[in-house]
């Protein structure tokens, strides 16, 4: 199945998408703690992520990547500024509304511990749909499972799957509910290069072929090169951007940031 996902050479992707942005952050600031102990994780970030685009967020450790992602996904509250997901402004929403919104519109792939250990792969994949009380679209489910290549692993529990397989299950889960945006925080951080390539190729094809929107945090220039665009963060600010990145271009940019 890897043949389906051989990396497409950078720059040969679809043209700039004309659709309205899926996620917009306006002057988002995030401060942890207060007084002397205050940590300014984000200092006024304004960025928008187009529908049907695959964006990578990069930057040195502690630059605020995860924080930004959490704020965009409605997992964390912002100190100031606004975040809009689709047409909904999520800043100021209560916990319950946010939870329901996440359930319906957002998909996640984390670096590790993506799956509920007591559930089988299939149950994990269907979890968000079940939570939302929706009937899974069987054809779509089969298609996704086929694409991630997990057909014969569906009844296994996470403990019986390899790291790469677990990440692919997480990807499948993020896709099955057809969320507006998928957020991925270092999804390949724990994987060897081959498994990483599988996951990344899969994410990209889901953008190309299924029209998903993906925002991915990564430290790996090769991983970032799968994206349509790279946003660079430093000290809680967006410092630069790169469209149609190549690994080398990304590396140069990182060096320039003094990371």
């Amino acid at each position, binding site marked *: 199945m890897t043949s389906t996902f051989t990396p497409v050479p950078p720059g040969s992707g679809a043209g700039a998408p004309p659709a309205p942005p899926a996620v917009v952050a306006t002057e988002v600031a995030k401060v942890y703690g207060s007084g002397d102990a205050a940590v300014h994780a984000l200092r006024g970030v304004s960025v928008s992520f187009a529908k049907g685009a695959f964006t990578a967020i990069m930057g040195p450790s502690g630059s605020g990547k995860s924080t930004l992602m959490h704020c965009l996904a409605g*997992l964390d509250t912002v100190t100031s500024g606004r975040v809009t997901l689709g047409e909904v402004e999520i800043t100021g929403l209560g916990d*319950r509304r946010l939870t329901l919104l996440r359930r319906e519109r957002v998909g996640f792939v984390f670096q590790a511990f993506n799956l509920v250990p007591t559930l089988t792969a299939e149950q994990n994949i269907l979890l968000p749909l079940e*939570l*939302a009380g929706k009937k899974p679209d069987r054809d779509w489910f089969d298609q996704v499972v086929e694409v991630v290549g997990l057909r014969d692993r569906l009844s296994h529990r996470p403990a019986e799957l390899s790291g790469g397989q677990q990440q692919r299950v997480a990807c499948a889960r993020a896709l099955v509910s057809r969320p507006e945006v998928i957020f991925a925080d270092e999804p390949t951080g724990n994987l060897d290069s081959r498994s990483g390539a599988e996951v990344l190729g899969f994410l990209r094809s889901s953008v190309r072929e299924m029209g998903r929107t993906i925002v991915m945090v990564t430290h790996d220039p090769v991983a970032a090169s799968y994206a349509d665009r790279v946003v660079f963060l430093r000290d809680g600010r967006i410092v630069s951007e790169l469209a149609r990145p190549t690994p080398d271009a990304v590396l140069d940019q990182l060096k320039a940031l003094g990371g």
Partner: protein
Amino acid sequence: MLKVSLAGVRAHRLRLMLTGLAIMLGVGFIAGTFVLTDTMQAGIDKKFAGSASKVDVAVLPKKGKVDVLPEEGPGGDRVPADLLTKIRALPGVTAVHGLVRGEAPLIGKDGKVYGDSPTRGLSVTDGPLQRYDIVAGKAPVAPDEAVLDERTAKRNGFKVGAVIRVLDAKGAEHRFTLTGLADFGVDSEVGFYGGVGFTPATAVRMTGERDPVEIDVLGGDQAALRDAVAAVAGARYDVLTSRALGDRLADAAGADTKIIRTGLLIFGVVSMLVSALVIYNTFAILIAQRMREMALLRCVGATRRQVFGGVLLESAVVGLAGSLAGLALGVVLAAGLLALVGGMNAEIPTDRLTLTPTAVAVGLTVGIVVTVLSALLPARAATRIAPVAALRSELEPGGGRFRLGWPRRILTVLFGVLGVGLALLGSLSMDKGETAMFVVAAGGALLFLAVIALMPALVRPLGGAAGALPARLTGVPGRLAVANARRTPRRTATTTIALTIGVGLMSLFAVVAASGQATVVANLEEQFPVDFQLHTQFSSAQTDPELPPALAAGLRARSELTGVVEMRRQEARVGGDEVEVGTATPAAFGRLLKPPVRSGSLADLKTGTVAVNETIAKHQGLAVGDTLRIGTGRGQVPLKVVAVFGGETSLSSYVVPESDFTRYFGAKGPWTIYVNVRPGTDPERALRAVEQVAQPYPTVKATSATAVKEQFTSAFDTMLMIFGGLLGLAVIIALFGIANTLSLSVVERTRESALLRALGITRGQLRLMLSVEAVIMAIIGALTGVVLGVAFGWAATESMADSSVFALPYGQIVGLMALAGLAGLLAAVLPARRAARTSVVESLSHG
């Protein structure tokens, strides 16, 4: 290592606190028992010392002849009256009082003798030897004056100055003016039946007891007086100085305190057992969670012994803290209970709480030893952790699988077969009685061990069954809860077993009580299908009280009543033995009285014949057709045996026809009369008719079958409530266990919870998930307990007596399960809040 242990306690203080609470409750119960009984005993000692100090020397029957108080029965436990005269004549004696004690039935407000047993008649002097406190009015001085104990006076509405009626030993009525109210001291008999105090001479006349139960003497030097009195009293009597008298009285009353203590301590042991399970589980989980920490310790050079010692030290610290808190709780509990008891019963003086060194030592020792013992296995598990475990990536605790190993299988089969075998042996094939009950109890203990061994394997199926409904109702949270309850089978098993103990014992008692009640009712209905029974008070002085002969005729004359049956009986000699010969109204045989006839026929009971109880027949080797000789007022009479009967019956061992009975023993009143309501008559009217007929006879009491049933029912209910209350503590501790396991699991699953939250589980659903998990655990535990309790309740009932009837208290059992479920919900409140509160982001990044 000490530092590491203490740091461990500090770091996990919240988790350990719940463990500490379990110990605290157990130790608190035990310490509270000690404080309560010690305080009561101290009060009793003080009261008796005060009462005895009024006496210089006292003469009592020799100790050991009597085990309770020195007044039961006639003869050997009294002091002869002529000794009183001899002592009075001794030089130096200034005052002498012979304490009279006997039965003096008081006639209550309703014109009937008061109580089920006659009130006690006591002598009260107005001299310096007056031992009782007169709390209102004054002591009686004239022959027509009397005092009553406060409670009896209050129950009957008698005020000082009122005229009361008391029957003398021959049943003649006497009138007295109530001059005051007395406190007759800590005296269980007077406490139960009430007491009437007269002047000494009147007391002798009323009770018919010439010989006092004790002689009190005043007169100069105690030692010299004692020797002088002892010289005239002789070796058959104890002559005690006031101090020795106080000790002896307190000892006698202290027996009750000891019984209370032992009874309560049994429940304390059950609570500690449950605590031990909770502690064991907590430490086992903590060790599992700190696997890395332990391995790291091993990596940096800690030996196995050090790791082992470290864990034990940690448990000892927790045990000490919990026990200390338990002691404090015990004092508070005892104080509260005493305040409650003090309000109801002023007879037991309890001025100051007594915390003896024994209580402190026992509480602390039990608490610490139980904690450390419970931590032994987890500590051993900690030493098994290999140093490399520190390097391995994190393990998710609990694979959800549990394979029943061979040792467990063998134990389960062995104990299970033995337990069930013993239970069946005791309940079905052994002779009914104490031995059979012990065999059943042993079977119960063994089967419980088998269940403990098997429980981890039962968690999966039981969890699935218990969770089926919640999973359907609540969807994803419910299904996750079922999976969670089943993922760590050992942990869930231990948690639920703790609840099984309390619930099992509760349902066992519920079944035994319900069966006991059903047995009593069935026996009553089968043996006495009567609506009313007329009888006299139960008296120990009059061994064979008779009802007035005219009573039966009066009852037969009433149109509201029917089936009047007179039961008569008489002591007689058959061979060399004193036996009871009885008879009943002829029409009753085969109708009201139908004992199971083993051979012959009761229809053959004609002149010159006798029917014999099967036990006696077996013992004497009698069979139908044999002839026996019975001693009567007209000499030896030969009787032919025509029937052998069995069963639980009110018939005497030897039953002769009524006409023969009168011929042999003369006209004699019945000891009891059975009466039925005529069909179609209002029971209330019938009751009034019975009361009217009995009205002229103050000693005759009428009891209705319904009232007896109600009495038994309420007695059983009270018993059940007390046991339930005492076992409630064990259940509460088990709930702490559930809460503890759950909060430890919540900590363990922080990241998982965060993931679920990120994926769209609401806070409410997360809380629901944990609640369902707790309820599943509670239901597993309660269900196992109920099954075991009901099974062994049945076995115990069967083993008790032939006539036992098994009854299942559905309502109580269902209530118990519902309560367990509810309690599970309660146990989940705190852990669920904690789980719902944790921040998604933090847990995801730092988990």
